[in-house]
């Protein structure tokens, strides 16, 4: 149960939110100027990094507002939360690097 710090409501449990996938993927200014390939990129291709990821959430049962977050997809830790329309803050120094493994068990380190 992630604890998500809604910029308007403060920390609330994950069940109050909906996930919105990658942040900063604007609707193309002129979709008709795009090749089919580029349009497909807009429709279906999203970053999927292992580590910090700028993504969108909406506080669905709370204030109903969309916002952005940077979350580490390995540790699930939120590194930043920021409003829609703002550029991603620099989080590289904000928190320790994500460490991988549960313990030295020789298991898949993720």
């Amino acid at each position, binding site marked *: *149960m*992630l*604890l998500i710090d809604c910029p308007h409501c403060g920390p609330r*449990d994950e069940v109050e939110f*909906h996930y*919105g996938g990658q942040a900063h993927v*604007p*609707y193309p200014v002129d*979709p*008709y100027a*795009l090749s*089919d390939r580029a*349009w*497909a990129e*807009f*429709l279906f291709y999203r970053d999927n990094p292992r580590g910090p990821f700028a993504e*969108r959430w*909406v506080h*669905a049962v709370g204030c*109903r*507002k*969309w916002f952005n977050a940077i979350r580490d997809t390995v*540790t*699930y*830790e939120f590194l930043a939360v920021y409003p*829609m*329309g703002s550029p991603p803050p620099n989080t590289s120094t904000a928190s320790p690097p994500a*460490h991988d*493994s*549960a*313990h*030295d*068990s*020789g*298991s898949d380190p993720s």
Partner: protein
Amino acid sequence: MTAHRLTGYRVDPDLSPGHGIDRDAGITVTVDGASVPAFTGDSIASALIASGRLGCGPSIHMSRPRGILAAGVEEPNALLRIEARTPGAPSESMLPATTVDAVDGLSAHWLQGMGVLDPAGDDAYYDRKYVHTDVLVVGAGPAGIAAAREASKTGARTVLLDEQSAPGGSLLSGRDETIDDTEAVAWACAALDRLTAQPDFTYMRRTTAIGSYDANYVVAVERSAADVAAPASAGVARARIWHIRAKRVVLATGAHERPLVFADNDRPGIMLAGAVRTYLNRYAAAAGQRIVLATTNDSVYALLEDLHTAGIAVPVVVDSRPEPSDRARAALEATGARGVFGAAVVGTSANGQADASDTGGTADRGRVTAVSFASVDGSGRPAGAVETVPADTLAVSGGHSPVLHLHTQRQGRTRWDEAFAGFVPEAPVSGQSVVGSANGAVSLGTALEQGAHAGHAAAAETGARGPLVVPTASASAPGPVHPLWLIASPGAPAGPHGPTAPRAPADSEAPTTAQPLAGNGTPALAPEHWASHFVDLQRDQTVADVLRAVGAGMRSVEHIKRYTSISTANDQGKTSSVNAMGVIASLLEDADPASVGTSTNRPPYTPVAFAALAGRRRGDLYEPARVTNIQPWHVAHGAEFEDVGQWKRPRYFPRAGEDMDAAVLRECAAVRTSVGFQDASTLGKIEIRGADAPEFLNRIYTNGFKKLAVGKGRYGLMCGADGMLFDDGVTMRLAEDRFLMTTTTGGAAGVLDWLEEWHQTEWPDMDVLFTSVTEQWNTIAVAGPRSRDVIATIAPDIDVANESFGFMEFRETQLSNGIPARICRISFSGELAFEVNVPTFYGLAAWELVDDTGQEFGITPYGTETMHVLRAEKGLVIIGQDTDGTVTPQDAGMGWAVSKLKDFVGKRSFQRTDTARPDRKHFVGVLPVDGVTRLDEGAQLIAAGTPVTPEAGPVPMIGHVTSSYLSAELGRPFGLALVENGFNRMGEIVRSPVGGTLVDVEITSSVFIDPEGKRRDG
């Protein structure tokens, strides 16, 4: 029952404190039919031991006799099935006898490693709770209590939980410890008494933290005292799942003791030393009368002293360490017991099979009768003469494994601590601390000190401060630990150590023979010499099994776990996984324990009943059923309901003797010939306001909305960005800048989210706002040629004539009885029809008014099924039934609603090669040529002449039937379909396989009645 030489017995009060039992409250439990006396406070296991019955069900695969090994959740052997305590309730399997409280009258049976599921449903009450705290302390042993005390006194909200029924943790197992000069258990109880008097302190007994999740979210299971005693009254939860969000977490979860791996180490009577001590001191239950102790560390010496005090003979203490520690020396001196150092147990003798007349079951079958030991060399190989002493019990301690499940569940790292010989936290998880035995603290003093500091610091980190007081206890310096991972049997041809040690085949070589460990010229290790060295008792897995896995080429502990199934049973390897690691490290040359590691811990820490986790989400409460204000009328009038999203909608209203077809034909006929009415309140409704609202709608809908006149409505289509239809509905313009959008019932929430998403994330500067008003309004559809008559009567203030109240217009008015209403002329059936919208409070009254008024025309209530037929006869699409996420508006024959002039969400996608194809699947009508066969919804269509034989392979399909009904109006069955290039196949006869035969089907227009739309105006 033949008399046994019962070995275990209840110890007199002057010889044992028996902290945990109430000797005045005698009760009886029944195990495998034998009645067992017990005291309140006993576990089933302690009652059995006190009765000299420590034998349990045999082992799962090999059927070897087994006995109780442990005294807590780590028990691998003694699994019970508990009979239901109330008639009709289910029995429950796979409960360790060590964790089940003895309750008067309880009856249980031993299991052989496998449970039996009881088909009886479980009507017990289960509950869930969400709480928040500043500090959560898991484990109410000395470390946990010290932590809770320091945290709570600062005023910080503090929750302390422990799986045990009493506070004290390991203190309950002891007898001579003191804390702050008070007897330790009394100290614990007094501390808890003071704490529970604090306002923001909560102590939960019988509560196990089973999982630790992100941001200090800990899930715990509280078992009511009546858990197995059952007959709880309504509302008294048998178990309650706590969801605890904590600012800080202190883990004080203690440590589990490890057994030793030697030949026949699984015999009844071989027990963990700590457990023997727990039984003795907490339950006043002596496990035996002659108890040999075998150890790798100092912990058994307290047991030695306690046994001595209780008058129980200890023939010898076998200690792997070459030299006695100070602690060992002192205890041996004080008790006069014999200690043998640098030695290990190498085998045991046992009772023969129990005689056939032994209806008392398994009490002594296979029980230890003698213990053999020998000195061992540096790596644990027997090096000297073997000595055998008679004994009925062997208490072993192979070291301790800190309980770090909750730590590692949060990706906390561990490191191998050589001195402690166990995995300890490398560093706590952020926002947490680990204290006491769980942190490798060996002495009581250290445990208290770590606990107190952690509790104090945790509170301080939440902003609460207080003075720090560390409870004191006599601290003795811990002696060394000398782990033994496996102990060869004397006389075995070769052990896995020493000069003739076998080894796993070199990594790159495949063995040349079938013998796995015959690599490199070394003599084969005979697995049979290792076939009774048990590593995982519950899974019946031995060193020989590990040898096989390693021999097969497996190196990772995760592979060996899966090859052997070690640590995958009920106990999840609590006593076996570190031993397995030790064995593997010994077999793989050069491997040190740390690099082998253990397999991953996963939640839950201990097993939890499914029903407890389901909680109150059962039956009626499983998921909300949403209903309209008119629902009571529907129920009273015998409606059959359909689930649409979370809503319950009337599907049809059967009259006596009618099946669905009859009812629907009747309802349809009523609408086509006179008038019917339907509760359409479930449609989503969104009120939209803003100067940019028209432009916004233009971007969202495929068709134009800017020019829609105030007072009028328009049907609109929405597509996803991929161009596929995703919702539809009528939107009315209430004012220049105000619209009321309707959506499908199931789509309502999704559409509102969709609008908000585009507004907030793409076009935040647009002046437009959305508010859901779905439940503000009840909507009553009144349809059929006589609907105008009904409306004219109920809404006397408006002129309902066609010329003055046109199609897709609406009027605000008051109904004849004064109810405020907004009436629209909308049709989803092709008939003249109206929708009467009234504020929710008046929904039922308005419905009844329509009903009363319509009586003279035989007004008929109809449900969703009739609505489906009516719209299908008109060729109107139902999104989600006739479409499936792959259908564009053009495919659905609604190209007319796709604007050529403006851009809208999804439009660009129509230009893609596949989406632009002219021969996509099109929405058409289908008529079975014989005029009588009703096609299946979901029936596939194939071109005429297509062979349908298994030999011909997959049969090419050209489409499928999306909707299919009997039509009262057409007097025949008909359907709608998506068919490849369907618009260009009008009149073509295709075929549909129906129940083994092929039916000829004509492709037609999707509009079956009134293509000119004349009925719409009445």
